């Protein structure tokens, strides 16, 4: 289960960050070498991201984050970079499932209220986001129960390994 309280800095991105921004198809040859693949995370959106991001930090994006390919590697390399959660105004469907299946929380909120570099604290059990830099509080949208359960087990594979089946 992800920690109930997450803390880190906000890395801001705009609308429609596609899976090709997150991890381009041209690196298909690295998909069986995840540490090598992860060096290219967000490369076509911000080539400096990989060097700046620290464990616990947040990706804070606009609308329709993760549109495009079904490649779960997109969620995987973001998690491998140490990102503790993705905050976005909205998220593409396949990416949403993939992130939750990797145990990476995706929280839907009004990200315009968060500034680049702001210190953020997310409390998953209280459904709150606090911008410590601005001293403001945001709430995030409800996640379907099946996804909360998967998230609580750390992802879909551990969930199914433990329960043997889906439990609605």
């Amino acid at each position, binding site marked *: 289960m992800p920690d109930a309280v997450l803390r880190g800095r906000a890395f801001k991105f705009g609308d429609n960050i596609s899976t090709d921004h997150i991890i381009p198809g*041209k690196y*298909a040859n690295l998909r069986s070498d995840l540490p090598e693949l992860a060096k290219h995370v967000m490369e076509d959106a911000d080539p400096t991201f990989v060097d700046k991001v620290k464990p616990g930090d947040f990706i804070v994006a606009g609308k329709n984050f993760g549109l495009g390919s079904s490649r779960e590697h997109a*969620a995987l390399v973001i998690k491998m970079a140490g990102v503790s959660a993705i905050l976005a105004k909205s998220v*593409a469907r*396949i990416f949403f499932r993939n992130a939750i299946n990797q145990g990476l929380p995706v929280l839907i909120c009004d990200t315009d209220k968060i500034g680049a570099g702001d210190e953020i604290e997310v409390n998953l059990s209280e459904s709150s986001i606090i911008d410590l830099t601005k001293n403001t509080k945001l709430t995030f949208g409800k996640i379907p129960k099946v996804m909360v359960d998967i998230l609580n087990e750390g992802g879909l*594979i551990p969930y*199914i390994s433990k329960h043997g089946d889906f439990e609605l």
Partner: protein
Amino acid sequence: MGKTLSEKILGDKSGTDARAGDIVIAPVDLAFVQDTTGPLTVRQFKEVKHGILANPQRTAIFLDHAIPSPNRQLSNDHQLLRRFAEETGCQIFEGGSGICHQLVAEKFANPGDIIVGADSHTVTAGGLGAFATGMGSSDIAVVFALGKTWFRVPETFKISINGKFQKWVGAKDLVLHLIGVLGADGATYKALEFDGNAVANMTLPQRLTVANMAVEAGAKVGIFPSDNITRRYLAAQGRGSKYQALQPDADAEYERAIALDASELEPMVAMPHAVNNVNPVKMLAGTKIDQVFIGTCTNGRLEDLAAAAAILKGKKRNPMVRLIVAPASQQVLSKAMRIGYIQIFVNAGAVILPPGCAACLGVHQGVLGDNEVCLSTANRNFKGRMGNPEASIYLASPATAAASALTGEITDPREVA
């Protein structure tokens, strides 16, 4: 209250009432991966405790994204997938058989089926009346093991298309226009359901083109009712007995209704770097291009090649433009050879690639150089998509692509045909 196509299929399969917003668990008729999502799926599957393949005959691997393999790592990924098929008895389609979505249409998809694939364009099979949607590797690994998965029953947008297409205007122009209307996230989590007399007259391959791009508006599925056109296609593919009539109820509830007049449409182009950045070809006429790519799961079918061949017949590509053609499957390639389309392309100066995804995703076979411009019949033009973030991609129909290959600039097919 009546039901939409999605509510009907998910209800039938899950044995529940299945209304929009419900979460259901439903058995899956086909689960598949391709060579760039398959290796992770196989590894995830092996991590599922007690995981054995639920239905080897309903599990398929398609080698299509990087074939023949351009490098050692991808060759090793292909080996891993071949070994998995040997160990489990699942179906495998070797490189050159075709693009997964085309092969799913040719060999598997039937009206009323639930199909999931580790590829976002799995929605293509909606053209045959299947509830078909893309998922990631973990989800597909679990379907491999359990034969089922969970779905949120989507709300539906009804897209009614009436009227007759003008000559040289077709399914691709329609769906580009529709995505322009909806926006890149206008249908996120929703089902698009098509109807109207233009849909009833649309060939099955044209329906596959429209369904294929539903995901570019964020949709979960793009689904067509089944009819005699569906029946004839299935019969021609040796699956006539799999036909079932599938129509939404007259009193089904739709979240939104959009009506389009096919007769008003003209050739359309999506401009860099977003699929919903759509304009009529005439607004972009004269834009210089370096490469034309005709193929993909969107537009690599026989009638797409027919449209391109009709324009290219007896002519040569502009010497400043590279022309690449990749048929969507072996079946398409064989027919295109017999009819003579391939010879027309060769005479026009085209490079013919094996059936597969080819240049579409930037792995090989047509990676763009810095500041180069490609006009492609594919479904995505995101920055970096064709292997270079410094390049630009325009999306259009096979007819527009062929016309532009002749002139070296974006050209309305009606001007050269």
